[in-house]
């Protein structure tokens, strides 16, 4: 088991495996996203308070969950890289950062778009919204720090 895990940490083997899984997983995710979007837009009844705006919830909530879990994933990968020096973990951190930032941005904007017809305002400075904004800045910070370090390493 541990041996298998170590093999997966080798960039060469990981590259082969992920290349093989890429297309089937892409097709599966396209299928599920279209199915989910069709369900959310066509079949779900309007909410008794939110009306049709409840349809935004079907993208806003998954985006917010992904935004948070992306950060946890990034922290886990960074810890693995710092402790065991598995190079692939650092690659994972690098790949998650822009993905997480874009999804956090999506969660923030869809939340604002939902808030306007529901609360009557685009933004309030409450704990959840503010902490999600801070999460977005954290992602941006990780991206900026990494690009600065890479530029320094390249100029040496």
């Amino acid at each position, binding site marked *: 088991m541990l041996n298998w895990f170590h093999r997966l940490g080798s960039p060469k083997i990981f590259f082969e495996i992920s290349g093989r899984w890429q297309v089937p997983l892409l097709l599966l995710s396209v299928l599920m*996203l279209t199915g989910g*979007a069709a369900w959310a*837009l*066509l*079949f*779900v*009844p*309007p909410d008794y308070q939110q*009306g*049709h*705006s409840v*349809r*935004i919830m079907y*993208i*806003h909530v998954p*985006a917010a969950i992904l935004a948070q879990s992306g950060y946890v994933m990034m922290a886990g990968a960074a810890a693995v890289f710092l402790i065991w020096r598995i190079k692939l973990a650092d690659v994972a951190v690098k*790949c998650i950062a*822009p*993905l997480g930032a*874009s*999804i956090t*941005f*999506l969660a923030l*904007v*869809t939340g604002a*778009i*939902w808030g*306007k*017809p529901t609360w009557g305002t685009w933004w309030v400075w409450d704990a959840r919204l503010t902490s999600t904004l801070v999460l977005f800045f954290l992602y941006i910070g990780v991206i900026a720090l990494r690009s600065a370090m890479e530029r320094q390493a390249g100029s040496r």
Partner: protein
Amino acid sequence: MRFESLSAFFYMDGHGVYIWAAYGLTLVILAANLWWPMLARRNIIRTAKSAMLKGMNSQRPEDQS
């Protein structure tokens, strides 16, 4: 189906603008997340190839001497 006509589907009792904006932005961000790594991959392969060619060219004069 929850809608009686296509225009009712787009209007959604006045919430259509918000819903379609949210779904449109989602599509854009998901597409960008696919497109950007593909572009980055192409750039990496291109720079690696040109670096390799440069390495070969710089080796040649040494071989002659």
